[in-house]
C-alpha cells in the first residue's frame, strides 16, 4: 500500500516537473545577432521577451520593422556584448557571425539560426519555425495567413509576354535563379534575363554582357549612394545611361528585400507598381 502511494507521488511529481520544463522552454531573454532575426523577433516574439537587437534594426533604410525597434538595447552582434545579457535564446543568421555562433554553442547557450529562404514556401516555413522557437506559434500562423491572403489579392495584371529585366548592382553583380529576388521579379511579371545567362544565385557579369542582353528594364541597385567606390563605378558607368531600348530603374529598396519575411508582398507590389505599369 505504502509502495503504491509512493509510486503515485513519484508520478505526480514527475508530471509537475515536466510541465515546469514546458514552461521554461518558452525563452524569456532573447538576443538577436543579425538584422533579419531582429525583424522576425519584432514580428513574432512578445516584446517583453526581447533583450537586444542589432544596430541595423532601427535604420529605416535597412529594416522593415525600424519603427517597432525603438527602445531596445542595440548591439553590434559581438560575443562580448551579448554574453553579459544572460540570454536563454540567441537567434542569428546562418550566413553571419559563424565564429561567434560556434563559440556560443560551445559555452552551452542555445543558438538558433535562420537560413536564406529562396521561395514563398520557404518564407512560410521560416516564419512558422521561428514562431515555435520564440514560443508564439499562433502569432506566426496569423502572420503567414495574412501574407498568403495578401499574395492572393495582389491583383497584378499580367501581360501575355513578360517584360525582360536584368538586375545590376554594385561590384557588377546580377541575381539569377534560386533567389528570392528572382521569385519577386517573376511574380511582378518580369522575365529575368540573368536566368537565360545561366546565372545561379549572385554572380558578377561584365558590362558588355549587360549591354548585349538588352533588357527592357535594367534594375540598378547601388548599395552606397553618395560615396565614391570602385563598387559603384560599375553601376555608374556611362554606357548604362546610353543603353538602347532599356529603361533604367531603381531595384527594390533594401528595407523590403534585405531579409525574407511577409514584406515580400510589398516588394513584389513595389516592382509592379513602379516599373511594370509605367509606360514610357
Amino acid at each position, binding site marked *: 500500500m505504502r509502495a503504491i502511494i509512493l509510486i503515485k507521488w513519484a508520478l505526480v511529481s514527475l508530471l509537475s516537473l515536466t510541465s515546469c520544463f514546458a514552461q521554461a522552454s518558452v525563452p524569456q531573454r532573447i538576443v538577436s545577432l543579425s538584422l533579419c532575426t531582429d525583424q522576425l523577433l519584432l514580428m513574432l516574439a512578445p516584446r517583453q521577451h526581447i533583450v537586444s537587437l542589432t544596430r541595423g534594426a532601427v535604420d529605416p533604410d535597412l529594416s522593415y520593422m525600424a519603427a517597432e525597434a525603438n527602445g531596445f538595447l542595440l548591439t553590434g552582434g559581438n560575443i562580448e556584448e551579448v554574453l553579459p545579457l544572460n540570454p536563454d535564446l540567441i537567434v542569428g543568421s546562418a550566413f553571419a557571425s559563424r565564429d561567434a555562433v560556434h563559440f556560443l554553442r560551445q559555452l552551452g547557450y542555445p543558438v538558433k539560426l535562420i537560413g536564406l529562404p529562396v521561395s514563398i514556401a520557404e518564407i512560410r516555413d521560416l516564419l512558422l519555425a521561428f514562431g515555435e522557437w520564440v514560443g508564439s506559434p499562433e502569432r506566426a500562423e496569423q502572420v503567414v495567413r495574412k501574407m498568403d491572403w495578401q499574395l492572393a489579392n495582389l491583383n497584378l495584371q499580367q501581360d501575355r509576354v513578360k517584360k525582360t529585366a536584368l538586375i545590376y548592382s*554594385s*561590384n*557588377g553583380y546580377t541575381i539569377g535563379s534560386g533567389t528570392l529576388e528572382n521569385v519577386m521579379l517573376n511574380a511582378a511579371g518580369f522575365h529575368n534575363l540573368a536566368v537565360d545567362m545561366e546565372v545561379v544565385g549572385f*554572380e*558578377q*557579369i*561584365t*558590362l*558588355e*554582357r549587360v*549591354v*548585349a542582353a*538588352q533588357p527592357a528594364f535594367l534594375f540598378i541597385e547601388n*548599395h*552606397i549612394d*553618395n*560615396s*565614391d*567606390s*570602385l*563598387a*559603384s*563605378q*560599375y553601376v555608374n*558607368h*556611362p*554606357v548604362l545611361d*546610353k*543603353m*538602347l531600348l532599356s529603361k533604367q530603374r531603381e531595384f527594390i529598396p533594401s528595407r523590403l528585400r534585405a531579409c525574407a519575411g511577409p514584406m515580400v508582398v510589398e516588394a513584389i507590389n513595389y516592382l509592379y507598381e513602379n516599373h511594370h505599369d509605367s509606360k514610357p
Partner: protein
Amino acid sequence: MTVNHSYHGVLIGLFVAMIGSFFVDLLAGPVSLQWFNIWAAIIENKASLDSLIFFEIRLPRAILALLVGATLGISGAALQGLLRNPLAESGIIGVSNCAALGAVLVFYFGFTQWAWFALPLAGLLGALVSVVLIFLLAGRSSSTVTLILAGIAINTIAGALMAMALNFAPNPYAMQEIVFWLLGSVANRSVSDVLIIVPFIVFGGLLILSCGRFLNALTLGEETASSLGFNVQVLRWRLVVGVVACVGAAVSVCGNIGFIGLVIPHLLRPLVRHDPQRLLSVSAMGGAVLLLLSDVAVQVLSSGGELKLGVITSLVGGPFFLYLILKNRNVWG
C-alpha cells in the same frame, strides 16, 4: 650606320607590335561584335549595340592598357637610368604603392569632386613623396641591396597606410577594393578615366624623353655628366617629375600594375645596345605591348572580369625578377 639601322628596325617592329596588340585587345571580350555595325556607327553616326560596347567599354579599356603599359615601361627605363640600378622599378621601389595611397585618400574621401585632376594629382604627389624618400634612404647610385630594402620599407608603409585609409573610408566596399589598388586593372573603365590621365601621361612622357641625352651622359657618372655641360640637379628633378607625373596618373585610375617597368627595359636593352636614351622610347612601346597582351589574357581566361590584370603581369614578372637575381647574384655579392 648599322647601329642606326637596327635601332630603326626595332622601333618600327615594336610600333607594329603595339598597334597589332591594340587591335587584338579590342577584339577580346565576352561579346562577339559585328564589325560592320561599328563601321556604320563611325560613317553614319548610327548607334547600335555593337558600337556602344565598342566605344564605351572596349576602346577605353584598350587605350588605358596602352597608355599605362607605355608609362610603366618608360618610367622603368628612366628610373633604372637615373638610379643606375637594374632593379629600379616603380612597383619595387614603392613609387606605385605611394601613388595608390595618394589616389585612395582622394578617391574614398570624396575629394574627386573638387577638380577633374584631383585624382591623378594625388597619385602624382604620392609618387613624388616616395621618390624623395628613395633618394633619402638609398641615395643615388647606391647598392642594389640598399635600394631593394628601402623599397620594401616604403612599400610596406604605403600598403599599411592604404589599408588603414580604406578601413576608415566611409563606404562598406572600400576594404575589399584593396585588391584593385594592389594588383591593378583596366576593366570597367570609361572614357572619362582616360581623359583625366592623358595630360599627365603626355606631360610626364615628354619630360622623360627630353632627358634622354642626360641619361646617356649619366652612365659615365654624375661628375662626368656635369663636365659635359649637363645641369645635373635640374635634369635629375626634371626626370623625377616626369616619372611621378605619368606613374602617379596611371596608378590613380588603374591601380598598381607590377613588374612591367622591370621586365621590359631588361628585355629590350640588348636590342638598343644598352643605350639609355634609345631604351626610353622602345620601353614605352614594349610596355604597351606587354600590358595589352596581358589584358587579352585576362579577357580570355575570365569571362566575368574577376581576374586582375596585375595578376598576369606579376606571373610573368615575378619569375623574371627571380631570374635576374640568380643571374646577377655573383655581380651583386
